[in-house]
């Protein structure tokens, strides 16, 4: 099979390109895988983590806001906290929705569980908020601290005044009572504060009981004080009682508010059920987050594994293609270089004139073709050089022969010149004869023309005679008709005469005579008609013969004219021949000098041939060709007769038969017997 370099290169590059394509396909495949997992990561896992984190924050915020709401005292603050709480809850809901969107499989269950827990939490939170918004504990405290404290201070101040008044008056009992009252009053306030500080309603009621006891004592003591109060102090005492009553009223309100105990309830709810539910939700959230993180890690591991596989495969492909490329390149370059160096060596040897070298390189590719061509070229060169060698030898010997021949030629030319002179003289004689011929021919031609005209005129005359004869025949037929009519008339006359009987006898004789005459005229006319018909026939024949004669005479005139023309041409031809003979004389002289020149040229040629032989000796032809060289004179000798044979036909005269066939027309060959091509154009008379 022929495996060319082109095919080898195509195969090598094809394989390398194929491997590159395969590795690119593998790389693209891996990238696509990594891209898929990254998309999943960004689209699902990361979203999930972010949502879960946000939920976590929002839940913490919500819890904090709940606490703040419980602790908050002002309406404005509470509203703000409640709003914030609501926002956080809404945020959680929104993120739950988002989670549900991206969650799948196990995640979805967790999200559902979380959503359920959150749903459980939301009503609790609402309740805590409502309770906190009611804010009864704080209100109670505010009432107690504000209006309560003021009223109490005022009442306490009156009691102090009253005590001072009693001391002034020296009313010891009164003073003592008043001091106890003041102490009990303070005790009530203390108890009130304790109520406010209590968390549970039971504790509050316990404190309230103590407070009630002191209130009763204060009431009793107020009653006891009554009789001790002087007139001047009555007003003061009454004012104290009014203010005490006011304070008591406030105290009752404080207590009622305290009993409501919303803040504490809210706190309890928040810190028990709320925390529990929230913790449960948070637990689910943590699970979701943990799961998402695990997904994240898995994705990372998967991506790494993909990357490693792809990298290894691509490295392997790269290695394989590199190895294959190098291998093929080496293979091609080695094979090409070996063949080319062999071919180069052969070409160099030829350039040095060495035609003996031969190389053995068998490869069916372009290099093989090149080497084969080179080998063929060397073989051809070898043949050519051999032939040139022998040709140069031939030229050398031929030029010597040429020299001898040219001398002979010179001698021949001199003889030719004398012959040409003789021929010229003969030609002049012949030209004079031809001119005489031409004159005679033209005279004959004139006579023939005249004869032709005369014959034509005779033909015309005969035609006229025929026409006249025809006219005579027509006229005679009229006479004949008249004779016939006369005959008829005579017959009728005879009838009339017969009918007349005896009287008509003489007339009958006349009629009979007339009839006879008419019959004779008729017969004579018929005879004339016959004769004239014959005359016409004869005349027509004469006319016809004459008319035949005319073209013959004309033809004769034409032929004579042709003869005359031929004579003129002959005359011209003779002149030309004469000129040609003179030309021939000149040429002969030129030939003589040329043959001398040729002699010297042939010597020059011999020298050139020798030079050629020396030049061609540059090529070495090896043993067999070198051995053949001495035998070349033999070859030369065999060539010689061939060269003579080539010259021979040129020297020989061309056979006359062939000359006659040529279209020249000026060749004189009067001696040749028989008809030739030109004779066919003429008629013999």
């Amino acid at each position, binding site marked *: 099979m022929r495996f060319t370099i082109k095919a080898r290169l195509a195969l090598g590059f094809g394989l390398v390109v194929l491997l590159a394509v395969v590795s690119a396909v593998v790389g693209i495949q891996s990238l696509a895988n990594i891209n898929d997992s990254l998309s999943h990561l960004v689209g699902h896992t990361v979203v999930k983590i972010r949502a879960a984190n946000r939920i976590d924050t929002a839940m913490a915020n919500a819890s904090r806001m709940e606490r703040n709401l419980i602790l908050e005292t002002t309406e404005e603050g509470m509203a703000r906290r409640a709003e914030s709480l609501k926002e956080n809850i809404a945020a959680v809901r929104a993120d739950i929705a988002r989670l549900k969107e991206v969650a799948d499989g196990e995640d979805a269950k967790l999200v559902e569980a979380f959503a359920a827990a959150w749903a459980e939490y939301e009503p609790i939170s609402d309740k805590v908020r409502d309770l906190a918004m009611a804010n009864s504990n704080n209100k109670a405290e505010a009432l107690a601290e504000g209006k309560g404290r003021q009223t109490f201070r005022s009442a306490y101040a009156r009691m102090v005044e009253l005590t001072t008044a009693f001391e002034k008056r020296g009313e010891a009992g009164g003073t003592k009572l008043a001091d106890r009252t003041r102490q009990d009053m303070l005790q009530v306030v203390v108890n009130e504060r304790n109520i406010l500080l209590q968390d549970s309603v039971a504790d509050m009621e316990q404190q309230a009981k103590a407070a009630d006891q002191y209130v009763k004592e204060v009431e009793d003591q107020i009653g006891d004080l009554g009789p001790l109060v002087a007139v001047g102090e009555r007003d003061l005492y009454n004012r104290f009682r009014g203010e005490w009553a006011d304070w008591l009223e406030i105290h009752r309100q404080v207590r009622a508010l305290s009993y409501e105990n919303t803040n504490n309830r809210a706190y309890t709810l928040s810190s028990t059920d709320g925390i529990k539910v929230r913790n449960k939700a948070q637990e689910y959230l943590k699970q979701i987050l943990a799961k998402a993180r695990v997904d994240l890690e898995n994705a990372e591991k998967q991506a790494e594994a993909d990357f490693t596989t792809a990298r290894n495969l691509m490295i392997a492909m790269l290695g394989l293609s590199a190895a294959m490329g190098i291998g093929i390149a080496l293979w091609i370059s080695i094979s090409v270089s070996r063949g080319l160096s062999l071919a180069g060596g052969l070409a160099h040897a030829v350039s040095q004139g060495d035609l003996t070298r031969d190389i053995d390189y068998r490869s069916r590719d372009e290099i093989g073709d090149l080497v084969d061509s080179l080998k063929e070229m060397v073989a051809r060169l070898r043949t050519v050089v051999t032939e040139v060698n022998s040709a140069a030898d031939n030229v050398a010997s031929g030029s010597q022969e040429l020299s001898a021949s040219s001398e002979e030629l010179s001698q021949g030319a001199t003889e030719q010149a004398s012959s040409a002179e003789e021929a010229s003289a003969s030609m002049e004689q012949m030209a004079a004869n031809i001119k005489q011929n031409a004159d005679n021919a033209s005279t004959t031609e004139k006579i023939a023309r005249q004869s032709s005209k005369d014959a034509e005129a005779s033909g015309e005359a005969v035609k006229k005679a025929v026409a006249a004869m025809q006219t005579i025949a027509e006229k005679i037929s009229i006479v004949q008709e008249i004779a*016939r009519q006369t005959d*008829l008339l005579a*017959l*009728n006359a*005879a*009838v009339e*005469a*017969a*009918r007349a009987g005896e009287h008509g006898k003489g007339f*009958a004789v006349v009629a009979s005579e007339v*009839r006879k005459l008419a019959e004779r005229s008729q017969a004579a006319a018929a005879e004339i008609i016959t004769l004239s018909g014959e005359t016409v026939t004869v005349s027509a024949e004469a006319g016809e013969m004459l008319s035949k004669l005319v073209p013959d005479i004309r033809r004769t005139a034409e032929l004579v004219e042709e003869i005359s023309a031929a004579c003129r041409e002959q005359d011209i031809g003779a002149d030309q021949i004469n000129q040609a003979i003179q030309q021939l004389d000149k040429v002969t002289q030129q030939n003589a000098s040329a043959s001398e020149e040729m002699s010297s040229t042939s010597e020059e040629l011999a020298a050139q041939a020798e030079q050629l032989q020396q030049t061609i000796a540059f090529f070495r032809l090896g043993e067999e060709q070198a051995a053949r060289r001495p035998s070349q004179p033999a070859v030369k000798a065999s060539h010689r007769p061939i060269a003579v044979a080539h010259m021979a036909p040129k020297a020989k005269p061309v056979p006359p038969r062939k000359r006659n066939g040529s279209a020249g027309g000026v060749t004189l060959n009067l001696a040749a017997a028989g008809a030739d091509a030109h004779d066919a154009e003429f008629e013999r008379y």
Partner: protein
Amino acid sequence: MHAIEAGTQFVTMGVDREVFAVEVDAVQEILDAREIARLPNAPDFLLGLIDVRGHSVPVLDLRLKLGLPAATVTENTRIVVLDVECGGRRLLLGLLADRVFEVTGLDQDAVEPPPEIGTRWRSEYIRGIGRRGSDFVIVFDLARLLTGEEAALLRKAA
């Protein structure tokens, strides 16, 4: 049938190879053949009418009348115009003959009645057969030649 008087002149005419004759007294005129105006529904032998100096004259073809085939008109063809007494009336008619020879008398002794049998024509037309030299001359009986019926036809045509 009355006998032929001696010295009677006849006009002789040729039809086919035979020679016929009519008495010269019956002949009014001899004419060249001329254009004949044809008559519709006429019998074959009645060729038609010619004009003779202002008179219309019916022409009979003797050849057809005698049962011979018709011949073409030549320069010798003649129309013999007859003036015939027929059934007490004069009748002008033309006979188309191949040729007319002459006005002549017959050798009186040689006039014979027509033979009874073996003839080529209907013998009732023949008045007699005369001789002139060695030739036979058949003399027509004109009245018979034109029977009553034919004469009536001719009169009608004229």
